[in-house]
């Protein structure tokens, strides 16, 4: 953890918030990753379909392109695919039940002090910290 990490974090954050601001003010949509992917999968927002596909193309394509051009990004994801699959299931189910994730509730909701988003963020942060404590420090599985 260095000063450069903080600066890159803040600059990247401004880009994330800038993207959400553009999507809201120009297209009138909330930039929530789980809502966009989830609505495409379950067909719950047919009128938004084309925009959601375009958004996902940018979201997947741009970092992939930067990586191909030499960005040293690595995910350092655990090699334990059972843990990975379980985590994915929980994230997919949980974010759709809650109506949002870190982008929808964490960024877009908190910035307008939405009560549901404040509650959701408090719960997923607490649950995340508790899970990490148990899985890493007590069970040693991650």
């Amino acid at each position, binding site marked *: *953890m260095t000063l450069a990490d903080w600066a*890159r974090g*803040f600059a*990247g*954050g*401004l*880009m*994330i*918030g*800038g993207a959400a*601001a*553009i*999507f*809201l*003010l120009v*297209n*009138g949509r909330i*930039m*929530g*990753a789980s*809502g966009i*992917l989830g609505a495409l999968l379950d067909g719950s927002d047919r009128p938004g379909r084309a*925009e959601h596909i375009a*958004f996902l193309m*940018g979201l997947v*394509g*741009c*970092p992939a392109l930067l*990586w191909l051009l030499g960005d040293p990004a690595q*995910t*350092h*994801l*655990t090699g334990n695919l059972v843990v990975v699959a379980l985590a*994915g*299931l929980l*994230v*997919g*189910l*949980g974010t759709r*039940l*809650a*109506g949002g*994730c*870190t982008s929808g509730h964490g*960024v*877009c909701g908190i*910035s*307008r002090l939405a*009560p*549901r988003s404040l509650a*959701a963020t408090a*719960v*997923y*942060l*607490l*649950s*995340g*910290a508790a*899970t*990490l404590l148990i899985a890493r420090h007590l069970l040693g599985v991650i």
Partner: protein
Amino acid sequence: MARLAVALLAGALFGAGLLLSGMTDTRKVQGWLDIFGEWNPTLAFVLAGAILPMTLAWRIAARQRAALLGRMLPAPASRRIDRPLLIGSALFGAGWALAGLCPGPALASLGYGGTGGVVFLLAMAAGMLTAVPAAARLGRTPQIKDA
């Protein structure tokens, strides 16, 4: 057409921001949640940076009738805190901690995340589809849509 171009651009900027901020690195995200281990506060800087322009955007939106390309702006946020919200957020937090990935970074890192990244995305998609019958059991009112 303009709407699609803006959506593509917003997605690209979101992805580039996630990459630059280090949020597609699962060690940094797990480090943020690891308050009893080697705590890494990067995520707080990312969140602060992201909330800043969005706070301004909501203020501008409050004075507009519609978005620039004509669509109605989102309705005021619901105040109802119900069981699906709390249970869903608790499940999400657990999955987020186990892998260090949430939906945005999982999509952004798909190009360089290897087999594990693909497995995570497929499992996440399956979980999202499970949410429809699960929400019905929890009695979720379908009109609440946050994001």
